[in-house]
């Protein structure tokens, strides 16, 4: 630089040496960057803690303690007529099966030479779940030919024993527990050593219905998963066509005036309405006025449809808007009608966006519990709903509601169950989100 | 309509070219007047200067041509700009021819300086030259002023030059008939007069370019011609 070209006074003489102003600016930039990294780190830590605690609490729900022993199904007890007719056999209650099981368990202990200590037969039988005789009865009624044979039986252990094997219950806590004693646990230790007791993968957690307060080991998510699935079908079938049709009309065909503006604002507001309000609406309208049954997946689906519609409409309109107007011009320019332009060109291009929005809306509906509480899906439902369409009116539960119900229960075993249910819910949600991403990637087209 | 382009460099280009044409016009006028004076005063030195000066005129024409080509290439002139460039090229060519005539006049004046003078003839030539340069000057002024009326007037006044040429033609004829020894000088003078008359025609052409520049149309009607010499020797 020559002397004749005067540099402005505020600029430093050297390029390699930043002046005070530049240094301050760079420092501010660094601070802001650190702040951002910090914020992300806090979020990540929170996520890790959340997932960690859920996985820590919930993964054990997928494994269950079983007591395995042979049982002779005495025909004289179970089938007095001897004709193997299930209708006749139903007269034998779970108490009858319970007696059989108690005898078989005691025999098995004797056979293995396990010291029963000072425990009474009843106390030994208490190691088994109260659900075990009922399961055995169901199995026999399903297949009467096994009567008279000796079969191995895998019976649920009581939740306290399950908790002992999972570390939830200790000898010390057992001394203060009315449901189990340290002596029973010592027997269990001996039975485990003999191979009578072991922890195994429990598919029942996903397939069995809910169980009562006293039998947490038997509780499963079957009804809840089925109920949620039914609701999702209802939501998809109703909200996708309605939402897409409404969006197309509003975006492409409707005149732009005060009425459409009003509708637009209301849709945006509906998306922000608290979900419990939808529940109240459903209770008042669907159940009280229309007389639809409580706890029915159809009603749940209708509520969730109302909730999902604004989301789908907003997503669909956004993706319709994202289709460049030049494509519409091109179609109209060669003489396509408005409908042809929309259905031949605009909609296919908007489809990935619409599907993504729909799936995300469904995912949100899947995780919703508040409105379902109001329409009675919180009820204790043991029976599986039938096949659709009639099944849509049968009482059912839903995954998030099941989580809610289980956390309300007193037995600590249900904490594990609730966490397990959350894991199942999260897996479904992640699967749906992944599906949304895959759809978008796959069908996204450049124009 | 504003007179300045949005692109001011375009204005500067056009102004530059037109200034060159004006300078060329000035040189040509001076050359014609100087040559006529050299003829009358038998000033061989002046005649020599005129002959040498033609080189500058030729160079200017080349330069104008190059500038016009450049403007057409990079500015893509349209409408009046296009007409400006086209007329500049034509006017430059006309002026260049006029420069050549002045040079030829100077050359012949050097030959004539060696001969006996024909009384009165050189004065007529000088008056004619004066009239023609006036025409040329007016045509160029009309160009600068974009004045079609003035240009039309120049076209009309070319008749005067033609008449002066006719008169001189008869005068020279008389000289030649009087004394055959005058023939060489008279022939030279006749060529000089014819050339000056041609300069008048070029001035008319310039005036026509002015009309085209202003109106967009070249005047089609036949210009009044008073050149009776082409009809053969006067009876």
């Amino acid at each position: 630089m020559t002397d004749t070209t005067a540099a402005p006074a505020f600029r430093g003489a050297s390029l390699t040496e930043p002046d005070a102003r530049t240094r301050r600016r760079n420092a501010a930039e660094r601070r802001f960057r650190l702040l951002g990294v910090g914020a992300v780190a806090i979020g990540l830590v929170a996520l890790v803690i959340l997932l960690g605690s859920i996985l820590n609490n919930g993964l054990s729900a997928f494994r269950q303690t079983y007591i395995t022993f042979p049982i002779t199904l005495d025909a004289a007890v179970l089938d007095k007529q001897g004709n193997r007719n299930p209708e006749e056999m139903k007269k034998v209650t779970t108490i009858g099966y319970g007696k059989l099981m108690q005898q078989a368990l005691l025999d098995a202990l004797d056979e293995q030479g396990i010291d029963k200590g000072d425990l009474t037969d009843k106390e030994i039988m208490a190691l088994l779940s109260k659900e075990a005789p009922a399961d055995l009865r169901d199995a026999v009624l399903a297949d009467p030919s096994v009567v008279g044979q000796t079969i191995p039986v895998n019976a649920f252990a009581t939740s306290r024993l399950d908790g002992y094997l999972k570390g939830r219950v200790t000898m010390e806590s057992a001394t203060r527990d009315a449901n189990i004693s340290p002596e029973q646990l010592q027997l269990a230790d001996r039975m485990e050593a003999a191979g009578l007791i072991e922890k195994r993968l429990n598919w029942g957690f996903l397939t069995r219905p809910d169980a009562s307060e006293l039998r947490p080991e038997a509780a499963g998510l079957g009804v809840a998963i089925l109920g949620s699935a039914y609701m999702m079908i209802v939501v998809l079938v109703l909200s996708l066509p309605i939402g897409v049709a409404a969006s197309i009309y509003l975006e492409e065909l409707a005149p732009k005036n005060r009425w459409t503006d009003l509708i637009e604002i209301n849709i945006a507001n509906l998306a922000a309405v608290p979900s419990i309000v939808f529940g109240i609406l459903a209770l008042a309208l669907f159940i009280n006025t229309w007389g639809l049954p409580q706890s029915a997946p159809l009603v749940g689906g209708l509520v969730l449809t109302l909730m999902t519609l604004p989301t789908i409409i907003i997503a669909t309109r956004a993706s319709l808007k994202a289709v460049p107007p030049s494509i519409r011009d091109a179609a109209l320019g060669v003489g396509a009608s408005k409908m042809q332009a929309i259905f031949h060109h605009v909609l296919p291009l908007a489809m990935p966006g619409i599907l993504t929005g729909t799936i995300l809306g469904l995912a949100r509906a899947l995780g919703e519990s508040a409105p379902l509480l109001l329409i009675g899906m919180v009820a204790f439902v043991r029976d599986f709903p039938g096949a659709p369409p009639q099944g849509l009116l049968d009482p059912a539960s839903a995954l998030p509601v099941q989580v809610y119900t289980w956390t309300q229960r007193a037995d600590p075993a249900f904490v594990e169950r609730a966490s397990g249910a959350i894991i199942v819910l999260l897996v479904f949600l992640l699967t749906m989100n992944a599906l949304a991403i895959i759809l978008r990637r796959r069908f996204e087209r450049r124009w | 309509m504003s007179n300045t382009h949005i692109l001011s460099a375009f204005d500067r280009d056009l102004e530059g070219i037109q200034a060159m044409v004006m300078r060329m016009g000035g040189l040509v006028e001076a050359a014609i007047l100087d040559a006529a004076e050299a003829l009358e005063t038998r000033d061989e030195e002046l005649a020599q200067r005129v002959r040498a000066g033609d080189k500058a005129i030729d160079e200017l024409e080349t330069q104008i041509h190059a500038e016009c080509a450049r403007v057409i290439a990079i500015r893509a002139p349209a409408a009046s700009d296009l007409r400006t460039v086209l007329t500049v090229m034509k006017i430059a060519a006309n002026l260049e021819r006029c420069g050549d005539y002045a040079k030829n006049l100077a050359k012949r004046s050097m030959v004539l300086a060696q001969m006996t003078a024909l009384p009165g003839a050189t004065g007529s030539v000088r008056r004619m030259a004066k009239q023609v340069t006036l025409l040329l000057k007016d045509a160029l002024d009309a160009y600068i002023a974009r004045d079609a009326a003035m240009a039309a007037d120049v076209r009309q006044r070319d008749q005067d030059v033609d008449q002066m040429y006719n008169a001189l033609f008869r005068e020279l004829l008389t000289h030649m008939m009087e004394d055959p020894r005058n023939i060489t000088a008279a022939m030279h003078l006749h060529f000089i007069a014819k050339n000056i008359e041609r300069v008048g025609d070029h001035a008319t052409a310039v005036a026509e370019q002015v009309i085209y520049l202003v109106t967009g149309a070249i005047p089609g009607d036949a210009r009044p011609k008073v050149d009776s010499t082409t009809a053969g020797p006067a009876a």
Partner: protein
Amino acid sequence: MNDMRLTERVVTDTAKMTARGVQVHYGTNHALKDVDVDILDKTVTAFIGPSGCGKSTFLRCLNRMNDTVASARVTGKIEMDGQDIYDPRVDPVQLRAKVGMVFQKPNPFPKSIYDNVAYGPKIHGLARGKAELDEIVETSLKKAALWNEVKDRLSAPGTGLSGGQQQRLCIARAVATSPEVLLMDEPCSALDPIATAQVEELIDELRSQFSVVIVTHSMQQAARVSQRTAFFHLGYLVEYGETGKIFTNPDDPRTESYITGRIG
């Protein structure tokens, strides 16, 4: 002005479309004021003028593309072969098959090259079978001077072509419905000079079959391709005439200012 015209410049003087007293309002904005134009048959007509002067608006009146703009109101009379195209009985869909349009940005459908060209004939039922459709596609692509470049990859996506090829594909698509008038809205503004030259050459060839109306911001392009030029300014049609006349000696000082690049 000059009596000796080159034969190439000779144009027919039968009007294909006539516009009389056309006014366009966009809401409260008076976009086009009292425009009278005759679009001549088998002639390239260029509309020039500064941005917002109404030239594109008028172009879009000619195939009723303004119908798609809710706030647009068109009055006056536009006739095509003596039929009022704004007659309420006229279906704009049918009109647009006769008056094709090519847009500023090449906008092929995100489909195959074949489907792009075949779309118009398909929806208008111009072909009675696959063979006939194939033929229409081929002749259209040939007319658009694109056939040799794409004949081996008709199933490739149209969006994969270069900009100039895409624009020629759009022209082929417009040509495929056998229009009588082809409207082009700044068809070369997104193209490089070579592609522009190819499209211009194409426009000149298409002139033998139908009228072409082209809106352009490039005055040089208007001068190169058109036989007639209309200059729009502030919603008015200022001057309309033979292109050579407009570019050498326009009558209106506003035209002169615009085409010579003066501050008007």
